[in-house]
């Protein structure tokens, strides 16, 4: 089962996008590529679902966008993290880690520990 890509957990796509653009401005396709790259292709993202998420994050003010030029000289829209987005990402990371600890703790509980 190890290498088969898993679907993105509901609600985590936003976090992944914030993380991806925190490493430098990206266009939409770039976001997709970066997530696949840093997850070593272990995550499967429905391509179309990326854009509503990007629009939602921008609407909430966590990322901002501007038009730029892509690697192959095409007009593309680049997204970057805003200050509010930075705080949001920190927050979410913190929350995720705590949650992951708790869940892991629960799942690794053995009979005799109860």
């Amino acid at each position: 089962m190890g290498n088969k890509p898993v679907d993105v957990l509901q609600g985590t796509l936003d976090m992944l996008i914030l993380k991806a653009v925190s490493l430098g401005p990206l266009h939409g396709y770039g976001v997709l590529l970066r997530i696949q790259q840093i997850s070593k292709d272990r995550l499967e993202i429905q391509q179309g679902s990326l854009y509503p998420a990007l629009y939602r994050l921008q609407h909430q003010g966590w990322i901002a966008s501007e038009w730029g030029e892509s690697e192959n000289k095409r007009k593309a829209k680049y997204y970057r993290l805003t200050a509010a987005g930075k705080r949001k990402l920190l927050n979410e990371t913190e929350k995720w880690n705590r949650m992951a600890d708790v869940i892991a703790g629960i799942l690794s509980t053995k009979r005799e520990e109860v």
Partner: protein
Amino acid sequence: MSSWSRIRSWVRATIRRPEMEQEMDTELQFHMEAYATDLVRSGVPHEEAMRCSRLEFGGVERTKEECRGARGVGFIETFLQDLKYGARTLRKSPGFTIIAALTLALGIGANTAIFSLVDGILLRPLPYSNPEQLVSVKGTYPKGGFVAMREHMHTMDVAAYSEDHEFNLTGYGEAVRLPGTLVSAEMFSMLGARPELGQTFYPGEDGAGQDNFVVLSHALWQQHFAGDRAIIGRVIELEGVGRQVVGVMPADFRFPSARTALWVPLHNDARNTAAYWAGDFMPVIGRLHAGTKLEQARAEIKMFQSRVTKMFPWPMPAKWNADVSVVPLRDGMVADVRGRLLILLGAVVLVLLIACANVANLTLSRATTREKEIAIRSALGAGRKRIATQLLTESILLAGFGGVLGLVFAKGGLWLLKATLPTDMPRLMDVRLDWRVLVFTAGLAILTGFFFGLAPALQSSRVAPVESLKSAGRGAAISVSQRLRSTLVVAEVAFAVMLVLSAGLLIRSFWAISHTNPGFKSEHLLTARIAPNESFCEEAGRCLAFYRSVVNQAQASPGFAGAALVNTLPLGGRITKRNVDLEEHIAAPGENAPLFWLDVVTPNYFRVMGISALAGREFKDADEAGSTVAVVTASTARRYWPGENAIGKHMRLLKEKEWRTVVGVIPDVRAFDIQTSEPEWIEGTVYVPYNSSATLEDGRVPAEMTIAVRTNLDAAQVESTLRRIVSGLNQEVPISEMKTMEKVVSEAVATPASTTSLFATFASLALVLGMIGIYGVLAFLVSKRTREIGIRVALGARRQDLLWLVMREGAKFSFAGIALGLAGALVVTRLLASELYGVSPMDAATYFSVTGAMAAVTLLACYVPTRRAMRVDPLTALRED
């Protein structure tokens, strides 16, 4: 920050919509091309890469839609889009649109018109300063009682008024009689009403000797004084008394009613005990002091009431003003019409509900034929919510058309209402269509659209696309939709039954009212009021001589079959009250003598009015010379001398020296209103001949008399003859209220007449809409079952079978609706009880005939669809689709 950026992005997205759309396209396009390029680079052939990229991206339109939603403009975006789409759809089926919009417009228009009445009369604050402080005292007080109240009350300022007085204005062209109101000096300032010109009254100007002033209404000032600004300070002759004009009120000041042409101060004179304590019993209004609660004023007026009773120079009955209270002025003014207006409002709401049900049905049948369109939209990725919203928007758009058209109807309707409703309805003049009514109409339209649009919208959004696309328009939804449609039609018929039944009861009641025998013959009878100044009749001889000449000359006029005088014309709206002593019923000391209605008449009055004595005789010419005789009504004779012959009994007006002999008994005359001969506080009616002993409470003979002329001539001829006679005798005596007796009677029934005609209108609307509803559902049913009917015919079904097949469906709706409607009517008509006369709210005959009529009418609505079913040609039917 976050919310600010959200608003900014929202505003930007809304304003720069086309640009954003373009950018979204570019962005998504870029994504797919970039991905395809990468695929090509990894060795996939170009064509294959493009296909793959599109496939893996997923639905582009759906993504765009979600992006729009994510940007927070989804709702505006969607709304605009739906509006545009809705308008296009409605334009494509003009027949449906016109019928639906017209139906809604009728409902909304009727509601708007009635609401404008309710708003203008019941809801709108009174047009005076700080109207919430204004109150009305429940109870009436004579001058002395009012003056005491003015001195004693600490919680509020009070003012008294007495409407329905009339004043002769002489010296300005032909003498005219003007309706005026007596007011206490502080009336205007208390209401906060400012004059258009000059002043109003100063405190103290209602005391005897300081009261020779008058304030004119705008209308009087314009009509009789040509709007002359120099009128202020001038003295005009009213009832032979010179009064200085101090002010003119603006046109929109109509207190106590629009009838009032002038205001004159009360004449408070404590030395005239009779007038001060027993004269006019007047309504009192007040203004609460700042910070005072209604309850405090109520408590104080109760205390005052117990005190004022002891101030009278004679004992007052304990029940006088026993339930005295203080209510907000507006409630006090409109108390009489509130019930009727609310009943009318209830009726139009029913009409609107029926209209809604009808349009919902139309929309449903359309939705069924639109199933394919909706299925396609759903297959293209439109969610259920999205489809429902779109259909709802379309409905609201339709209701919007209905609302706009309804406003036009309302404008006409209001004009009609003002013409139909009795003119004495308080505040009717203030009613108009303004922004409050517009807001109501807009709200109503939106609500209406929601109401009739919701069911079809939910219904349609449930369409299963595959199912529907496969089976050419006969999807599974039909059966559900059919149930909904049936429910709507049944409800529609039920509402219509309730309205028609109410109208039926009112019509029966009105028929009873207009066919009551009033006790006199109103045909070929003309009446006019003749009124010399009060002072003219101080000397009884002069007054009697004047009137004798009037009657003699009138009798002698060509074409006049008879002329007579009476002080209070039946149904004329006036009463002369007088305490009497009756043989065998002499009041004990400290008790009040019975209070009678005194009719003072010339000897041939009964003959002219077509009233003939039940027993004894009518008056003779000789009685006018001063015989001490009286005639009583049958109910009076029964009350005081039950089982005995009233003829020969004796009675006299209080303080009269000689006893009068009862010489005749006449049948009761509907004099107070069309239903009763006397108000409940009157204990009998007596007629006495017009001579010097026929005195009123103030000891004078009546000065104001009404002449009744029996003639075949037309009103104009009679009027000119009468004017010639009267002005020939005395230039200063005006003639007013020239009317046929039939007009007097019809004015007396104006209120039930208007209620009845309004209800009849609403009921016919409801009936027509209900018929259309049944017709629509059946027609739809038949068209949907054409195939089935064709098969039946092919298998040998006879015409009767088909008839039965369709009629059975129709009869089901009709009878269910009628049964429900009757049940509802049992409850609803009870609210009508106060408007009914001579018919019970449960009147069996009305219930039976309405049931029969409704059954007939609803089955008639089945006729066309049934015929269509019977004409189905099996070959054509089976070849359909």
